[in-house]
């Protein structure tokens, strides 16, 4: 696995400055709430970092609506809590231009967009969603042979490592999931594709090597999936990735914590 551990640290420490504001229509009372600024890890998920944000705005919301589920929006697009924060941010990259920081996100309590977002009843929902992704990734990489043989306390190291922003705790277990079990390659590469400007995701089976035994590069993969696009740029973690990068290397070093690569095609 991952010999280039420097990049793992680098990606783990990636943060975004966010400015949260309550939707003007939902301000209750005469006093306007101050915006709330926060540095959020790209690798994390909004429900895990927004407790303070909710607390800050709750007193400015109609008491009858305080029990409703808080949700986030940017430029009229509801933000999916089940995507990593960095992925959501990168989806708004257009023509090489990233969204200005701090990223201005609007907070809502009312009018939950049922047709666009899934509900996040509690932190357990984030945990089970995250663990399911890891299991799926392990099925793709190792035919489910690694995750299932890990003990419960090892699984919880992964989750608490993410929750408490503890790199060593997370990677002490995650390294087992990032080692190919047969030869030098995973069976398939867990990968989610997005096109900038859209929140829909596509997923297909991706192999790390071609039939003639050569490593498949990012450029070859993108050409296969987006044949009609003329020389698209590919981003992950806000970085434009060189086309000659092998997808196996990317999977080991540039996956999000759910063990999936999240690739944004611009």
């Amino acid at each position: 696995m991952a010999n280039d551990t420097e990049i793992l640290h680098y990606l783990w420490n990636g943060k975004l400055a966010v400015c949260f504001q309550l939707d003007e229509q939902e301000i209750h009372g005469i006093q306007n709430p101050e915006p709330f600024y926060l540095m959020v890890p790209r690798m994390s998920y909004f429900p895990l970092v927004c407790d303070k944000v909710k607390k800050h705005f709750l007193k400015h919301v109609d008491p009858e609506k305080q029990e409703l589920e808080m949700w986030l929006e940017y430029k009229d697009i509801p933000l999916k809590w089940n995507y990593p924060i960095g992925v959501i941010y990168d989806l708004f990259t257009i023509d090489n231009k990233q969204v200005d920081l701090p990223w201005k996100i609007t907070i809502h309590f009312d009018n939950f967009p049922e047709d666009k977002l899934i509900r996040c009843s509690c932190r357990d929902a984030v945990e089970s969603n995250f663990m399911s992704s890891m299991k799926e990734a392990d099925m793709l990489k190792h035919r489910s042979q690694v995750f299932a043989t890990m003990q419960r306390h090892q699984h919880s190291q992964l989750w608490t490592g993410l929750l408490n922003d503890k790199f060593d705790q997370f990677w002490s277990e995650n390294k087992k999931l990032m080692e190919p079990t047969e030869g030098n390659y995973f069976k398939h590469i867990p990968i989610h594709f997005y096109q900038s400007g859209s929140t829909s995701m596509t997923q297909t089976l991706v192999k790390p090597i071609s039939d003639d035994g050569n490593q498949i590069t990012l450029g070859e993969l993108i050409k296969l999936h987006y044949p009609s696009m003329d020389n698209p740029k590919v981003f992950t973690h806000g970085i434009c990735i060189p086309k000659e990068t092998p997808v196996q290397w990317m999977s080991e070093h540039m996956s999000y914590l759910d063990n999936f690569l999240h690739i944004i095609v611009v």
Partner: protein
Amino acid sequence: MEEDTVESSALKVNAAENKEKIEILLKATGNAPILKTKKWMVEKEKTVAAIIEFLRKLLKLDSSDALFLYINQAFAPSPDQTMKNLYDCYSTEGRLILHYCKTQAWG
């Protein structure tokens, strides 16, 4: 400008493709009631959440009853995952097998 036309026609093809239907097989696990009809044709753009809702109606479950859906008896797909993605990755012999259960079966 020419590129725009190519892309928008590609999008139209995608939209039409997503209306196409795929075959899914719904299999009961544990204490879940068995369906008379297991084989269903569903639109590719349908989400896991929509399938769960459909199943809840078929099985006449109470709103308090939980229902879980699994792929390959291994993991629970995210509610916003589409049938197309799951079919493209996990179908066997031209159909997608989904196991459903009233309690958590595979984590």
